[in-house]
């Protein structure tokens, strides 16, 4: 129980331990702690920033999407309008073409009728001449009666 020189020995040991801890143990461990604290804080800040950026990007994406939708619907409307126009145009042209064909056909019919009429007239004339020949029993000189024939022929046209 007595106090003796052990006290001095223990004090020296204690002083050495405290000195060693102060010099070689506390600073590196404490620094690493502080550094990690800083790193974690930075990491958290970065995460927060990233989160905000994501929100911003989402907003932007939504806006772009909306614009694209608007544009596409505009394009569709335009296309429908154009299609209608094209249909109308083609209807018009078809109508015109049809009319033109009808007109041409009518003209052709008229022409053919004229031709048939001509042929018919000639035949009627010759038939009439033949009949007159028969009736008169005498030969009518075609040269002599050319005037009469053409007169009759004209009356038939």
């Amino acid at each position: 129980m007595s106090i003796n020189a052990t006290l001095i020995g223990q004090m020296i040991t204690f002083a050495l331990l405290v000195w060693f801890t102060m010099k070689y143990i506390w600073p590196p461990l404490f620094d690493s702690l502080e550094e990690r604290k800083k790193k974690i804080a930075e990491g958290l800040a970065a995460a927060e920033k990233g989160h905000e950026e994501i929100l911003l990007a989402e907003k932007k994406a939504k806006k772009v999407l909306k614009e694209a939708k608007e544009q596409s619907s505009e394009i569709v409307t335009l296309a429908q309008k154009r299609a209608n126009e094209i249909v109308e145009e083609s209807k018009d042209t078809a109508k015109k073409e049809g009319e033109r064909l009808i007109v041409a056909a009518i003209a052709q019919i008229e022409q053919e009728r004229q031709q048939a009429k001509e042929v018919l007239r000639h035949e009627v004339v010759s038939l009439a001449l033949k009949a007159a020949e028969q009736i008169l029993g005498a030969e009518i000189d075609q040269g002599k009666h050319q005037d009469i024939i053409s007169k009759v022929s004209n009356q038939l046209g």
Partner: protein
Amino acid sequence: MASEAHAAEGATGYIIHHLTPLRVGEGFWSLHLDTLFFSAVLGGLFVWFFKTAAEKATSGVPGLAQNFAEMLIEFIDTQVKDSFHGNSKLIAPLALTIFCWVFLWNFMDMFPVDLLPLIGSLMGIDYLRVVPSTDLNATFAMSISVFFLIIFYSIKIKGPVGFAKELMFQPFGPWLLPFNLLLKLVEEIAKPISLALRLFGNLYAGELIFILIALLPWYIQPVLSFPWAIFHILIITLQAFIFMVLTVVYLSMAHEDH
């Protein structure tokens, strides 16, 4: 019971034997080799562990040793910051050293009371007191070192005149100077004495109870020593913590300028 030949017979002899240190020399200039040896080994253990952790310290993912060391350092740092408001590079490492060293001293109490003395007796060592904190020399060595630090910082922060003024004129003003001086001296001297005796008393009593339990029949021993050992885990940690916190508090008082 180891080396009964050297001790008195019976229970008293057993107890006395266990509480006798391994001593060389006579009078004041004698040494308790067991105290010196175990506290040096434990101090080495503490320094080795923390040095290893400090060498591998990274700010990235810490290893197991670093984790544990950092846990202790954070704990100590919080304690120090709570009660000490000055700026000192010494206080926190000092507190860490005190806490760990005292804890390791006290932890020697957790070994079975006869184990290390038995090994010692096999090696020809007759007396072995394994718990350094049951030696007044160890606890006083630490508390007197702390006392010197208190005096040193008091003079450093307040100046010799300021410190002398505080001793003489507080708390009752200059008219009661001798009374003030007496009161202050008692207050200052009470600090290392209470620090040392508190630690010593707790651990000495704890060790004594372990020794008393060891005297009982073997079938009763576990029933008593198990709860006492569990309770002792609390006590050894608490005593180390108290020593550390009081040191920090005393030193912060020394830093306060009135």
